[in-house]
């Protein structure tokens, strides 16, 4: 290793902590909330088609869904969920089927969030393709429900809701 390469390596090593500190102190990476993405399998057929590990939703959630005519199904099974922080100036990706990328939700803050609402730039990606892009203001007691693609005799239903903190469902 010649002298110039040594100097370059030493310089990078010396700057590494500063770069890391800069990344940590970047105010744009500060979380200003959290968003949960939950995927359900809604079907009028056999709920076991979703698999043995799918979890039936509680009765209150099922009743809430059934109060909307377009979302009325006999069975609702929870397939997956992911909660990601809502960053001040960076986008976040929720992967409810992690590590699969079959269904992804990208979201980004579009305004100052409060404890009860968040303005989001939202994208739903299915099978590697952007399916929806929208602007949405979700509230703590009013999430966004997307009745999505068909799967195994039913349809996937994606709920985007405010969460208390990353890793915890609303």
């Amino acid at each position, binding site marked *: 290793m010649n002298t110039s390469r040594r100097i370059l390596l030493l310089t990078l090593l010396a700057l590494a902590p500063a770069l890391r500190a800069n990344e940590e102190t970047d105010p744009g990476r500060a979380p200003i909330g959290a968003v949960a993405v939950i995927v359900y399998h809604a079907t009028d057929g056999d709920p076991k088609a979703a698999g043995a590990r799918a979890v039936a939703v509680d009765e209150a959630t099922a009743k809430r869904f059934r109060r909307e005519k377009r979302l009325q199904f006999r069975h609702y099974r929870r397939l997956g969920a992911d909660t990601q922080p809502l960053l001040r100036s960076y986008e976040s990706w929720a992967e409810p089927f*992690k590590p699969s990328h079959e269904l992804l939700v990208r979201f980004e803050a579009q305004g100052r969030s409060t404890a009860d609402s968040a303005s989001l730039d939202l994208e739903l990606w299915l099978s590697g393709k952007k399916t929806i892009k929208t602007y949405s203001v979700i509230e703590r007691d009013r999430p966004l429900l997307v009745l999505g693609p068909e799967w195994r005799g039913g349809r996937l239903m994606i709920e985007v809701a405010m969460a208390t903190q990353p890793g915890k469902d609303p």
Partner: protein
Amino acid sequence: MNTTPDELTLARWLDDDLDGAELEAMEAWAAKHPEQLAAREESRRWRGWITTAVPAETEPPYAEFFNHRIARAIRANSTSNATPALATPARTPWRHFFIPLTACAGMVIAFLLGTRIQSGHPEIDVAGAPRAIPVDLLPYTPDLDVEAEYFKSPGAAAMVIVLNGVGAIPDSLELIQTASVSQEEDEERPMASAPQNPQSSGS
């Protein structure tokens, strides 16, 4: 020799407006053209008929009387509108001070009014304006075959988007294999412990 008259001469001959050598030349030419003689007779007959049908121009009665009245009215109007003699302005000394003083006072008042308008309250009071303008959600679907129907559902206490035309996920795809992995199991798996976003997290 060409003896055919031009149109203007022919028209004047038809109106009996020629005399002298021109008239003689035209008469000699017309003697060989009986149709032109007939046309002149017709023209004469029409003129005679018009003379008998249309009354002759008559002078208005008492014309001199009316003209005299009009002339007198014009004279009287000119006398009343005559510019009066300009009065010589009184050269009072206070006017020399009063006019500039009034001008200065006007400028001061205009300046004060201008400063008051600038430092006043704005015309639009935004103190009571809402912090955010509610905007309806407008889903955009890049795929032309996909339609997104948006509505607010009071029953479900949610905003709802119904996707129509989106391709079905193959039934053979096992979404559930990884979806229902609990948080504890997820942490135990080295592959899934780190975020694996397909796209860059910075935007």
